[in-house]
């Protein structure tokens, strides 16, 4: 089985109290753990593991790492062999090194991003419980995001992007769902979307000038929730990058906006489509690239290619 889904995103923030207030009051997450150094761990109401977001007080607003959850502990041993055979060093962090997690397999992706894999994280449960549950929690704040859905990482140039894409397909058995192809005869991938589940993407990569995180996304049910989320953002003077829109790529209904440290977030709604390993790869050509990203206008919008969070480690 191997990797099931995104487990958590680990970021540095400039003002931890502002971040706490933002993610609790506006996004509707709950703080489930706080360390002595101020680090916060948060979860969404529809998630069952203890946390999906780690915020560390820092002098930088940067990206530390992303973690994915595997199904069985033995998957970690199998993946360690596969990753090292590919030529990448790995190390095991003992259980408890990463807060409330079992042992963690740590390594640096071909794109330069740090990645963690784990099989166990402390269980808390959904806010609605698991016996005769309500469809959504009556209590709760703001946008009431369901779960963290995916992350989009920035790679330094197409070669690095193509390498990490190949790595995810060959080592992690991810399926390439969509790609933007550029250059002579479309021979270079400039962006890729990959899945390990039945959603259009569990991770995505875009080629840019520097290594970093473009955004991570919170899942919402549908278009009405996107409109309501944008209203909540307006009420709180949240900096919106791109107002409610549809992506051609993934067919997602979307808002791009920024957190108090300038990390780009997305609210992503809808199924998109049923992604399966035998689905034909969807290709977007260089001339229709922006139609793929912002379907209605078909033009560059906001700060999509200029503004993103940089990697904390080089």
């Amino acid at each position, binding site marked *: 089985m191997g990797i099931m889904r995104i487990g958590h995103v680990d970021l540095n923030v400039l003002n931890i109290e502002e971040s706490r207030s933002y993610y609790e009051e506006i996004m509707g997450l709950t703080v489930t753990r706080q360390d002595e150094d101020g680090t916060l761990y948060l979860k969404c109401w529809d998630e069952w593991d203890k946390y999906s977001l780690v915020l560390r007080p820092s*002098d930088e607003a940067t990206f530390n790492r992303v973690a994915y959850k595997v199904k069985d502990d033995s998957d970690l041993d199998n993946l360690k062999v596969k990753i090292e055979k590919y030529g990448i060093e790995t190390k095991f962090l003992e259980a408890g090194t990463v807060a409330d997690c079992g042992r963690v397999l740590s390594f640096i992706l071909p794109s330069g991003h740090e990645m963690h894999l784990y099989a166990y994280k402390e269980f808390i449960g959904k806010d609605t419980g698991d016996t005769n549950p309500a469809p959504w929690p009556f209590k709760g704040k703001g946008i009431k995001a369901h779960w963290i859905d995916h992350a989009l990482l920035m790679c330094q*140039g197409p070669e690095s992007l193509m390498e990490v894409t190949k790595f995810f397909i060959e080592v992690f058995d991810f399926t390439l769902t969509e790609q933007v192809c550029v250059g002579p005869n479309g021979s270079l991938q400039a962006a890729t979307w990959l899945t390990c589940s039945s959603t259009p993407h569990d991770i995505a990569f875009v080629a840019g000038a520097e290594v970093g995180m473009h955004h991570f996304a919170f899942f919402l049910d549908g278009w009405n929730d996107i409109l309501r989320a944008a209203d909540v953002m307006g009420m709180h003077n949240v900096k919106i990058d791109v107002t409610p829109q549809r992506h051609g790529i993934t067919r997602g209904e979307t808002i791009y906006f920024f957190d108090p*440290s*300038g990390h780009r977030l997305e609210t992503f709604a809808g199924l998109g489509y049923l992604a399966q390993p035998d689905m034909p790869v969807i290709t977007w050509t260089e001339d229709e690239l922006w139609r793929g990203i912002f379907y209605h206008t078909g033009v560059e919008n906001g*700060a999509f290619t*200029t503004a*993103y*969070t940089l990697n904390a480690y080089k």
Partner: protein
Amino acid sequence: MKHNILVKNKDTNRTCSEDKHLMDSLSVCADLVPRGCHNGACGVCKIKVHSGEFEKSKMNRKHITEEEEMNNIVLACRSFPRDDMEIEFIGKPKSKIYTLGS
């Protein structure tokens, strides 16, 4: 309180409020400022403050060194005017590495 902000590299003035950072006030004008995250992470709004008092919230050290901060090189999105100011957007040197859509 409001103050007059001169953006030297665009030769344009705009009135800015004390309780908004410079990016929130200046981005209302089309093409006056670079498009960025407005909160520190992206660093595209790096400015040199040539004159005028202002208050700052914490800078992102990934983009602004302590030395730069002492020399009034700051992020516009972390700066709040307390006086008429003259500022200049520095901008990043354009990378030679291919960026999606470039």
